[in-house]
């Protein structure tokens, strides 16, 4: 049982920006999900309750499946996923958002959460990812590689410089010696992918796993010497409402079953 909320309209930001209707509707859904969970009686694992997992946007599909598998193993448990840019998730956690688990797309966001004393125990690396160029299916603009990102005539998208995929993407471009002429810095990797999928952008740098997640885009390999390996740490949070379930979820992500799910979505194992 999984419920979904995209971070873009995350609650705290909604308040700060007055985003209006884009925000807040999720709460109702979440309550509904939680109630159905309570009705189900606990089975063998003895775990019973709801945890909220804050996961990097690139983990959306893999963690949706992992959460389903986890609550199937533990019928009393409901996993609620809050996906978004790791930076945004970090800020929400630091602002006191009720979260049990944090899975970040890079160690630096996790480190900042640790520094703030918000992590219980040690984080563990549970997956690795790398970058790929995404183009709309059929590659209408005939993009060949990173060099094309300097072409002003193409519509190029990157992730914003501060979010992990933007940081990694710029690192790769830098290593390839390319100064990008991008037309947009998207707030997270999923919104970048959506615009490429819609054909509104000619190319963008996303994670390999994002390319694997949809038929709407084609991937173009980035040369190994230019590519960047992204490490994904996961940890139980200090203010977790359900620390036992949270620990069990982290354990599941590192288990053979969890790793198999991650691999099926294109991640490299821990």
């Amino acid at each position: 049982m999984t419920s979904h909320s995209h971070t873009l309209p995350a609650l705290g930001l909604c308040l700060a920006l007055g985003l209006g209707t884009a925000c807040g509707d999720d709460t109702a859904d979440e309550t509904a999900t939680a109630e159905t969970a309570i009705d189900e009686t606990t089975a063998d694992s003895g775990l019973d309750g709801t945890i909220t997992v804050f996961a990097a946007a690139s983990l959306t599909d893999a963690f949706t499946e992992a959460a389903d598998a986890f609550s199937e193993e533990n019928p009393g448990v409901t996993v609620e996923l809050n996906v978004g840019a790791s930076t945004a998730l970090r800020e929400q956690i630091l602002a006191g958002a009720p979260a049990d688990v944090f899975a970040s797309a890079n160690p630096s966001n996790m480190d900042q959460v640790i520094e703030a004393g918000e992590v219980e125990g040690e984080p563990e690396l549970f997956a690795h990812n790398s970058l790929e160029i995404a183009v709309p299916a059929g590659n209408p603009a005939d993009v060949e590689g990173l060099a094309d990102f300097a072409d002003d005539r193409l519509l190029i998208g990157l992730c914003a410089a501060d979010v992990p995929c933007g940081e990694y993407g710029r690192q790769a471009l830098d290593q390839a010696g390319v100064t990008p002429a991008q037309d947009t810095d998207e707030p997270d990797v999923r919104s970048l992918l959506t615009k490429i999928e819609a054909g509104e952008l000619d190319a963008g740098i996303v994670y390999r796993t994002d390319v694997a997640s949809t038929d709407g885009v084609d991937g173009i390999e980035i040369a190994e010497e230019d590519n960047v390996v992204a490490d994904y740490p996961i940890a139980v949070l200090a203010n977790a409402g359900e620390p036992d379930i949270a620990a069990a979820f982290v354990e599941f992500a590192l288990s053979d079953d969890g790793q198999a799910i991650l691999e099926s979505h294109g991640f490299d194992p821990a």
Partner: protein
Amino acid sequence: MTAGHGARRPRASGRPPWALVPPAALTLGFLVLPFVALLQRAPWSSLRELLSAPLVTEALRLSLVSALAATGLSLVGGVPLAWMLARTDFPGRSLVRGLVLLPMVLPPVVGGAALLFAFGRRGLVGGPVYDGTGFLLPFSLWGVIAANTFVALPFLVVTVEAGLRSADRRYEDAAATLGAGRWMIFRQVTLPMVLPSIVAGAVLCWARALGEFGATVTFAGNLQGRTQTMPLAVFLALESDRGAAIALSLVLVAVSLAVLVPLRDRWLAA
């Protein structure tokens, strides 16, 4: 033209029924407290430095330009539409009004995606236009203005329509019996009569456009100096530098108050 309000009625005492005071005070506190908290978190010592950065000045310029342009477009297109809704009786008018109000309830992100499907490079209208002329709305200032107008226009239409409905139509009838044409009546009688509503609607429209986030980022993307308005800059800064984000928000608050407070009486007159 204040004659339309008729004879001044005797005014009840300015002292409120005591039962209204606590809820009124509570409501005010609820609205104001977040701004107090914002002020309390503001990085006062580095404010000047933060606000003179190109990130801020460019975002502020883009916000003011696009909100003003959206208000202008809304006036040109929205006042005639409001007149049609208020004064003519055509089949399906309720449906048309519902459609006009749709952007108010639609999550802005969805509105942005819908705009993309209509006016994007592969969109219903945007596709043929792009193929024919190479003109592209997304990822440009025009795209920001389009997104702002889409979201803010209904506020103007609703306000002006309400003004038209409550205006005393006898003045128009009198003008007609004196031989004035329809256009002359509209220009010389109707418009001056509903001017307060038009001003109020324009201000609401402008304020909504100034804070617009979801539709803008989805339709026009985010690039500093080209499409990154204040709300987008705040959103991204919130993830990397909270102090800067708060400083940016304060600018937005200050600009809004500077416009909203002096206009208070006009507004109430509507």
